[in-house]
C-alpha cells in the first residue's frame, strides 16, 4: 500500500497549523500540512488582526506575553512583512460592574508583568478621538498590544515552513483515519493515504469532524463573526484596537487605512459564511453610537468567518491518552491570532521534547471530564 509518511502530519492550514509546521520544519522534522482549501482561508485569514495580551484567561496570559515578544521580530524571521504594529489595545466599560471587573483584572495582569493600566473616560477619548464619551465610565489600555495582517501572517508561516522543507498540501481533505489498536496507522486523504508518527488536529471548527473519525468527542462549537470594512480613512482614525466591553463592538484600523467594524461571534448552526442583516444593523448601530463621526463613512464590504469555541473559551492543546500520537491543537475561541507564533513553538516543543517551555496544563483535553469547567472570561 502506497503510504506517504512524515514525522508529523498536521490537519489544518490556519495560523496554528502553519506556525507549528514552521517550527517543526526548522528543527529538521518532516512535516506534511493538510489544508482542505487554502492556507488562511478560514478564521486565521478573516479575523480582525488583534494581537492582544490584556483581558485573556489567566492561563493564556504568559503565552500571549511570550507571543508578543515573538511578534516583534516575526516579519524579519519569516522574511515577509506581516504588518505588525504596536498600536495598543483599548477596552472601555459602560457599567460599574464592568469597571470593577476591570480593576481586579488589571491588578492581576500587572502582577503577571503586563504593562496595562486603567484609563479615565477622558484618557480613553484621547487614545481614540472619535469615541463618544457619553456612555463610557472608564477602561483599560495596554500599550504593548497591537495588530497584524491575518492573511499575510498565516501565509508567511506556511511559506517559511515550506522553505524549511515542510510539504503543504492544499485543497486536500481528510476522508478518514484508520486505527490499529490505539494507533492511527492510516490517514486517508483526497490526495492519497498518509501516515504520521504524530497527527495534529489543528482544524479549528472542523476539529470535531476530525475527532469523530477516530471516535473522539471534541467539545468545540462553531460561532460566526461578521465584519464590515470601511473605505480607507486617514491615519489615526482608529489607532488602538478598541472594544466596548460586553460584546458591544470592536474597531481596528488596518495599515492601509480601512477600519474593520466587528462585534462578538454568535452561535451558528452550520459553517455558514453568510452575512445577516441583523449583524449589519447591529454593527452599524453600535458604530454610530460609539464612534458617531463614522456615521457617513462608506462601508465597502462585509464578510464573516467561523471561530472554534470550547466550553471555557480557552484552547485544547494536548495529546490524547486513548489514541497514541494524536494531538489536539484547536478551540482558540475567537482570540487565537495573538497566540499563533507561541503556539507553534510550544506545540513543537511538546512534540519534540515532550515538555513545552511554558505550561500547557490548563489546555488539557481532559479538563472537561473532571467535572468543573472554569467560567469563560466575560468582557
Amino acid at each position, binding site marked *: 500500500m502506497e503510504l506517504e509518511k512524515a514525522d508529523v502530519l498536521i490537519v489544518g492550514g490556519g495560523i496554528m497549523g502553519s506556525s507549528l509546521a514552521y517550527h517543526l520544519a526548522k528543527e529538521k522534522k518532516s512535516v506534511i500540512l493538510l489544508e482542505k482549501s487554502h492556507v488562511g482561508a478560514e478564521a486565521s485569514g478573516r479575523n480582525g488582526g488583534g494581537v492582544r495580551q490584556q483581558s485573556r484567561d489567566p492561563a493564556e496570559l504568559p503565552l500571549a506575553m511570550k507571543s508578543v515578544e515573538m511578534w516583534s521580530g516575526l516579519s524579519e524571521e519569516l522574511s515577509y512583512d506581516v504588518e505588525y504594529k504596536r498600536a495598543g489595545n483599548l477596552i472601555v466599560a459602560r457599567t460599574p460592574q464592568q469597571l470593577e471587573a476591570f480593576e481586579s483584572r488589571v491588578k492581576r495582569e500587572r502582577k503577571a508583568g503586563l504593562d496595562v493600566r486603567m484609563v479615565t473616560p477622558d484618557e480613553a477619548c484621547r487614545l481614540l478621538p*472619535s469615541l463618544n464619551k457619553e456612555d463610557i465610565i472608564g477602561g483599560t489600555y495596554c500599550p504593548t498590544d497591537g495588530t497584524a495582517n491575518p492573511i499575510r501572517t498565516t501565509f508567511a508561516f506556511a511559506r517559511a515552513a515550506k522553505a524549511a522543507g515542510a510539504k503543504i498540501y492544499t485543497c486536500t481533505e481528510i476522508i478518514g483515519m484508520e486505527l490499529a489498536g490505539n494507533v492511527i496507522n492510516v490517514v486517508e486523504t483526497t490526495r492519497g493515504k498518509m501516515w504520521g508518527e504524530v497527527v495534529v488536529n489543528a482544524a479549528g471548527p472542523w476539529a470535531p469532524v476530525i475527532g469523530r473519525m477516530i471516535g473522539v468527542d471534541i467539545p468545540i462549537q462553531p460561532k460566526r463573526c461578521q465584519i464590515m470594512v470601511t*473605505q*480607507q*480613512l486617514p491615519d489615526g482614525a*482608529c489607532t488602538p484596537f478598541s472594544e466596548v466591553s460586553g460584546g458591544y463592538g470592536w474597531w481596528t484600523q488596518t495599515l492601509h487605512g480601512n477600519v474593520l467594524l466587528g462585534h462578538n461571534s454568535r452561535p451558528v448552526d452550520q459553517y455558514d459564511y453568510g452575512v445577516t442583516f441583523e449583524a449589519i444593523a447591529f454593527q452599524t448601530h453600535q458604530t454610530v453610537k460609539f464612534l458617531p*463621526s463614522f456615521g457617513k*463613512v462608506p462601508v465597502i464590504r462585509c464578510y464573516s468567518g467561523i471561530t472554534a469555541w470550547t466550553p471555557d473559551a480557552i484552547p485544547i492543546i494536548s495529546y490524547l491518552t486513548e489514541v497514541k500520537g494524536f494531538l489536539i491543537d484547536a478551540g482558540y475561541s475567537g482570540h487565537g491570532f495573538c497566540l499563533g507564533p507561541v503556539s507553534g513553538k510550544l506545540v513543537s516543543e511538546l512534540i519534540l521534547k515532550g515538555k513545552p517551555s511554558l505550561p500547557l496544563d490548563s489546555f488539557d483535553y481532559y479538563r472537561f471530564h473532571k467535572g468543573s469547567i472554569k467560567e469563560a472570561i466575560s468582557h
Partner: protein
Amino acid sequence: MRIENHPILGPLSNKPTIEIEVDGKKIPAIPGEMISSALIAAGIRVFRRTLKKNEPRSYFCGIGQCTDCMMIVDNVPGVRVCITPVKEGMQIKTQIGLGTWEV
C-alpha cells in the same frame, strides 16, 4: 457646451435656473440635471485628483459604476456626480484622493 438644438430631441426647453458652487465659483445648472452635466457644460473637466501622482480624473462610465467622477459634495467625499442631481446652492469641491473624513 449644452446642445441647444437637436435634430431628433428638439430644442432644449429646460433652462439653467439655479446655481451651484464649484471650488468657490458659482455656475448655472438646470434643476434635475446631474452635477457632472452642469460641470462639463461650464467647461470644468477635472473632477478629482489622485493621491499618489496628483493626476486629473473625470467622468468615465456615466452610470455610477466606475467611481472615477467622485467629488466632495456638501462636505461629503466620494459622491458620484454622474448620478447625483444638482440642488440649489450645492457646494462642490475637487476631491484629492479619497477626500478627508473628520473622524
